[in-house]
């Protein structure tokens, strides 16, 4: 976000609300951080000044606790359980409907979502990298998903540089953060007295232009750059930067898979919070009068029984094979599918695993043990 310093503006801290007000005036439903069940969630901002200050989130394997930021910043928290994913790839949605007419013939009709313009304030570099992967999956040339596309094109993304990574963050090692580089409409870097603000799209530029910001000083830009570098250096977890495809796929019978299966609950929390996981199931919900039926798509997980169910048998009957499927797809075969790893380093699967399983530890155990043997 600092590639063209001459285009960066400075948004004084008191004017954050005017950015929200501007987006609301443009017709956007604005979502920003709020607190629910002790976690930071993206919720609708009823008023332009509704973004809370001073929230921070202490994260560890299987643990997430809100704390206070001694500097009372707006975005000193690294992330919450969800950000963009549910707003583009809906957890539950109807795809089509079938009705029986009076003559008894069946009539099929597409059900398209009615989506408002939505602006999300406070997405992170990891979230943007994940969205690019979701785009690659759902908007693939020649077979774009209409439901996803409808929601996606109505999103306005205000990204924020991460200055305070959580202990679970590893975006520096995956190359996806902590400073946003692409995929945003507006990116902010929070300093003590305001935000360095840059536009990443024509929509974003128009909004910033209307705010009449003064240019960011060279010193402000350098401070923001430096805090991004410091945030990267402060990360305590990492994945190897090399392509892990061969390392993992050659260790499918490693004893560590049995060991992790004793801890894994196969609850699917990791895939639900993972911003790149896109698996879904489809279900039919016939009306009781027998005259219509809805065909719905719901989030699914490779940790569930039905995901591995083929006619007559299940290819992944046990937790060992399901965890292995998840990790090897995410970090190995994802390279074949999308040309990169499926991990963007947000660390959500580590924090939100009720059993505290840490994929960086699993990868280390799977690869180091083998290279030593």
């Amino acid at each position: 976000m600092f590639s063209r310093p001459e285009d960066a503006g400075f948004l004084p801290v008191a004017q954050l609300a005017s950015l929200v007000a501007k987006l609301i005036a443009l017709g956007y439903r604005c979502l920003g951080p709020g607190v629910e069940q002790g976690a930071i969630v993206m919720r609708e901002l009823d008023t332009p000044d509704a973004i809370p200050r001073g929230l921070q989130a202490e994260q560890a394997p299987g643990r997430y606790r809100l704390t206070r930021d001694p500097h009372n910043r707006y975005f000193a928290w690294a992330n919450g359980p969800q950000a963009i994913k549910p707003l583009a790839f809906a957890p539950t949605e109807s795809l089509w409907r079938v009705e029986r007419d009076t003559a008894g013939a069946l009539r099929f009709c597409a059900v398209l979502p009615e989506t408002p313009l939505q602006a999300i304030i406070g997405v992170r570099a990891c979230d943007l990298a994940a969205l690019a992967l979701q785009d690659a999956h759902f908007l693939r040339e020649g077979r774009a998903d209409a439901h996803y596309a409808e929601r996606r094109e109505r999103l306005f993304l205000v990204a924020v540089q991460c200055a305070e990574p959580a202990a679970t963050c590893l975006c520096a090692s995956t190359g996806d953060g902590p400073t946003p580089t692409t995929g945003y409409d507006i990116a902010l870097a929070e300093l003590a007295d305001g935000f360095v603000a840059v536009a990443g799209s024509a929509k974003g530029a128009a909004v910033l232009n209307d705010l009449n910001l003064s240019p960011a000083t060279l010193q402000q830009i350098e401070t923001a750059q430096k805090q991004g570098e410091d945030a990267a250096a402060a990360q305590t977890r990492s994945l190897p930067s090399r392509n892990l495809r061969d390392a993992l796929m050659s260790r499918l019978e490693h004893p560590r898979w049995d060991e992790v299966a004793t801890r894994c609950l196969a609850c699917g929390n990791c895939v639900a919070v993972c911003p790149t996981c896109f698996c879904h199931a489809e279900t039919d919900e016939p009306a009781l009068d027998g005259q219509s039926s809805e065909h719905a798509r719901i989030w699914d997980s490779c940790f569930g029984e039905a995901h591995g169910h083929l006619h007559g048998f299940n290819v992944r009957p046990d937790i060992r094979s399901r965890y292995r499927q998840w990790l090897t797809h995410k970090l190995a075969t994802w390279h074949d599918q999308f040309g990169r790893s499926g991990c963007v380093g947000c660390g959500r699967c580590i924090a939100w695993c009720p059993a505290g399983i840490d994929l960086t530890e699993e990868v280390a155990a799977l690869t180091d043990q083998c290279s030593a043997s």
Partner: protein
Amino acid sequence: MGGSTVRPRVAVHKFSSCDGCQLAFLNLGESLLDLAQRVELVHFAEAGPLDPDAEVDVAFVEGSVSTPEDLDRIQRIRTHSRLLIPIGACATAGGIQALRNDVDGAQWVAQIYSHPEAVASLAHSTPIAAHVKVDFELWGCPVSGPQILQVVNALLLGVAPHDNVDKVCTECKRRGYPCVMVSRGVPCMGPVTRAGCGALCPGLGRDCYGCYGPAENANTDSLSAQFRGLGLGAAAIEQRFRSINSQAPAFFAAADKARAGRDE
């Protein structure tokens, strides 16, 4: 049943239970009227029709087998029913009353009732499947209206009902609830419990207490270890599993393991 113009005949029977699962039918509201159009309710004491020995296509059975009279009655119902579907924790796992299976029930009865001889009760409360062949089971305490409709719909269409064996977590995450175990450290049974309730308790900020019984591949050992990490003692962990679905094999074994830890 699919394609038939004759309305399938349906019975709803009650055994030892609180009636809550029958209420899942009665609370269907307008859907109950639709249901009455599509099926013939020949026996459903709580709703009105009485004909317990009628031949039916589908018998829904609420409650556990808990009295000597129940033993005979469930056999008769099986004989008269093409499909037999236990509904709810009592019918699928013996229910809360199965907590007596582990103690001297006769002694309890003597302590509580002034005329213990008036109480005819078996030593154990057992699920319907322990006595007769069942065709499908609907877990939950109580089962929900949507579950009932899903099963009835499937049968009307002539297909096997979907058996949702996934964990409560799958529904919890689809609804966007932050995990209460992670964010607040409360010992939630969701990771080992069957879905179907719509993550009712986590949605209200509390922990799941397992009323839908064990999910498939329920890793109770790992969850017990997590509970210990959250500060639960062996007795508290045993109680988490020895509750509404205490006799469901996965929960029964987990409770026994916790007890073994307690006794050590």
